[in-house]
């Protein structure tokens, strides 16, 4: 069976796709934890970042760069992508989610509104660069670094795993240790009480959306580096998989999002190996449905207060 003969390759592939999901799952999970809203527009912000990175690459044809030039250009791409994503996210929070929150909009309204934003961003990208698959030229040579049991790990693979791990760890420590992290927890548990204690829900929301923007910008660039192509409508699949990964782990906590992402990536990869690539998606989704029936709050449970009466 292929799974056993090429186990390391399937494991690596699963971990890598899991690392891409980490950026998405963290974004959905953080926003959900605090503001209790499912923001379907998140993955479209990543698409915007990807398209800006594409435009950058198209303009300065990175194939002809020297080594130092390549490093500089890569860093510039990451920076621009992050800035764009943060801008989109914070703008959205201020222009849309904040007014919706002020009106106490029910979840259906928030979901549909964020869906609307998703479509606007996606279609705008489609109008900008067309609706075909667009190839991305890496600004550097993606050479192989080392291999584990026959699975070759190259620069992008390593970067993806390291950045995903580091980003998740940073966010986790920041939420747990910093005083801002305490404000976030306070808002998550009781927004009104938090406000009465001098915490501005809007500031918390803006900051969180900015943080998800950083995560999204990093995720978008790494996605491009890893897959070296994209299209205007990648967001839908990313949203579905990112949400499912977040839910698998248990929505609302950082470790849950990370665990869920890697588990989902591995389940997809192994499942695809056993049942064939066409069944890859079904296995992931089916795993989610089954898991939630057994453990409704995901693999890792969020610490909460008492159930309300």
């Amino acid at each position, binding site marked *: 069976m292929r799974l056993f003969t090429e186990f390391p390759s399937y494991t690596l592939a699963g971990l890598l796709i899991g690392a891409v999901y980490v950026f998405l799952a963290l974004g959905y999970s953080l926003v959900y934890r605090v503001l209790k809203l499912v923001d379907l527009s998140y993955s479209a912000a990543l698409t915007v970042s990807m398209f800006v990175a594409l435009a950058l690459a198209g303009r300065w044809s990175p194939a002809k760069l020297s080594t130092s030039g390549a490093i500089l250009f890569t860093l510039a791409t990451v920076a621009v992508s992050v800035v764009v994503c943060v801008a989109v996210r914070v703008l959205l929070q201020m222009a849309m989610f904040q007014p919706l929150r002020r009106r106490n909009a029910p979840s259906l*309204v928030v979901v*549909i509104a964020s869906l*609307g934003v998703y479509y606007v961003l996606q279609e705008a990208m489609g109008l900008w660069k067309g609706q075909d698959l667009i190839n991305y030229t890496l600004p550097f040579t993606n050479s192989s670094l080392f291999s584990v049991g026959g699975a070759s790990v190259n620069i992008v693979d390593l970067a993806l795993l390291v950045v995903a791990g580091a980003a998740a760890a940073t966010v986790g420590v920041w939420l747990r240790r910093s005083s801002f992290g305490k404000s976030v927890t306070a808002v998550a548990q009781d927004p009104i009480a938090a406000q009465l204690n001098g915490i501005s829900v809007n500031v918390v929301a803006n900051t969180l959306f900015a943080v998800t923007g950083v995560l999204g910008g990093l995720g978008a660039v790494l996605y491009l580096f890893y897959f070296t192509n994209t299209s205007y409508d990648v967001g839908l699949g990313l949203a579905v998989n990112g949400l499912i990964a977040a839910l698998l782990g248990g929505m609302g906590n950082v470790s849950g999002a990370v665990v869920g992402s890697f588990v989902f990536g591995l389940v997809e990869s192994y499942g695809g190996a056993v049942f064939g690539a*066409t*069944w890859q*998606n*079904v296995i992931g989704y089916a795993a*989610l449905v089954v898991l939630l*029936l057994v453990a409704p709050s995901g693999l890792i449970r969020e610490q909460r207060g008492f159930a309300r009466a």
Partner: protein
Amino acid sequence: MKNHDQPATAGAPRLWWANMQRRAVPGNRKIWTVALAVVGLVLLYSLPRLTIPLINTPQVSFPSVLFYPVGVYVLLALGLDMTVGRTGQINLGYAAFFAGGAYTTALMSTHGVSYYATIVPAILVSAALGLLVGLVSLRVNGDYFAIVTLGVGLVVQEIVSNVDAFGSTIGISSVPPPAPIGGLEFSVANPQAYDWLIFTMILAVCVIFALLYRSSLGRAWAAIREDEDAAALMGVEVRKLKVIASTIGAAPAGLAGSIYAAQVGYISPETFGLTLSILVLAAVALGGKGRIAGVVVGGVLVGYLPQRFLQVDKFSTLLFGAVLVVVMLFFPEGVLGSLQRTKGPAPTASLGARPKVADDDALPLTAVPPAASAQPAAPALEVENARVAFGGVVALDDVTLTVEPGSVTSVIGPNGAGKTTLINAITGVYRLNRGRIVLDGRDVTGTAVSARSQGGIGRTFQNLRLFAGMTVLENVLVAAEAANSTDRSGGGSSPRERASELLEEVGLAPMADTRSDQLPYGAQRRLEIARALALDPQVVLLDEPAAGANTAEKQELMGLIRSIAESGRAVLLVEHDMPLVMGVSTKVVVLNFGEVIACGTPEQVRHDPAVIAAYLGTESHV
């Protein structure tokens, strides 16, 4: 509403309004309604034949647009609204139910079964899928459920596109059209026939659903949507009703899938993807969830507008997204919902009539002789050695108390003493770690919340938990009907009669048709009491009913509590207001840190040194 030809009497304008709305439908108005309906139907059925340049669709013929997407979307939106709009669950995988119907008809009719014989199986397959999803909804709630349904939708789509029996990615082709009905041919050359068929289906679904929503089932669904926990406490069987809604709600998708397969003759998996689920959900939200007319309008808008303005194809999805954002920001209840809301009755500022309770001390609730004078009756409610702990925090420890019929037992104690926890333990919201709850001689310790409320426990809430979107009458009716579904309710009167009677008693009859969240605060408190009494409970739990009440209102409340007890019910009152407690109670139980520290008549408790130390302060101020 044009009734200003009659002068309103100065004293009771509201009363007059309420009566007008309920009873007086002038005879000739009825005729007009019928006439309008007939004209509407004629117009609707001639629509496929009309060629009006303004409404014509540029790329696909108008009659086929009327069938798909318009007609199909309307059917789907109607079905989806049963869960989204009625029980309040967001479903992102509704296209799976549509696929169920379409594939059933396609498979059966390509194997020689007549189209008409496939309709019922198609509906059944979809309903079965709905049943499954409904069972899932019992495990996962809210936004989680939405994402699970997303997964379900994708799984169904992937399965049909990977299994050869379903034609895998190619789908199923040459699905035969329905046989002619009385000379009416179903063919590509005659697209109107399909329009008429689907219009008829839509009308049938509308009528059936309208009847359902007006029934006690519909009201119970609305109660679940407004406040699931409170609904269970009012005796609504939340779990069962959610599954029923999901099952029935999937049926229109089966119907739509069935006729869709027969019309296009060819189905393939990509039709049944996430995009369709999202479009249908958008239709429900755009038009206005929870309203049949709103949902129909939403389905028409989402189905028709893109077809009409297809010249701007490149921008159509972008525009669609922008419209979603704008409508959700400015008309969160949907196009029709917001229109109706602005036209609706203005918030009632003051009470039309004061409650009768204060002056009429005998309430005609149920004629049971007062038990207070007789020898102590068997307790209606017994709490034995109850213990409730949250992690390490013990909220109730070894609490034992009884509440006798015809008496008022008050529970007092400082904040955090466990008073509300006690009520939650009695009603089943919290599970006991130890001990028993005995209701009328039956041990109910392990039973569900709704079973206890149907079994005779009614309660009010410290912070009001009315069904905000429903009228005053509907609030009471939900509980009355839940009680009626058991054979416990003694009197022969219908739930509606009982509900009106109760409203009369608490002085809210003139506002029966007002939305409950538009009542003033004191009236909302009285409505909660009426709703609790509608269960015809042996035990009434009142959780701080005097909170926020003024002196006059407290007086009225005292009378109301007395008359509830005099009607033979056992009242358990949790209250901070000492004059009220001391004035009305037969027995007072004092809780401190989750333990009973004193129990006795008001007089005994008032002089108990332990109570004075723990609660009343060094000297009694009552």
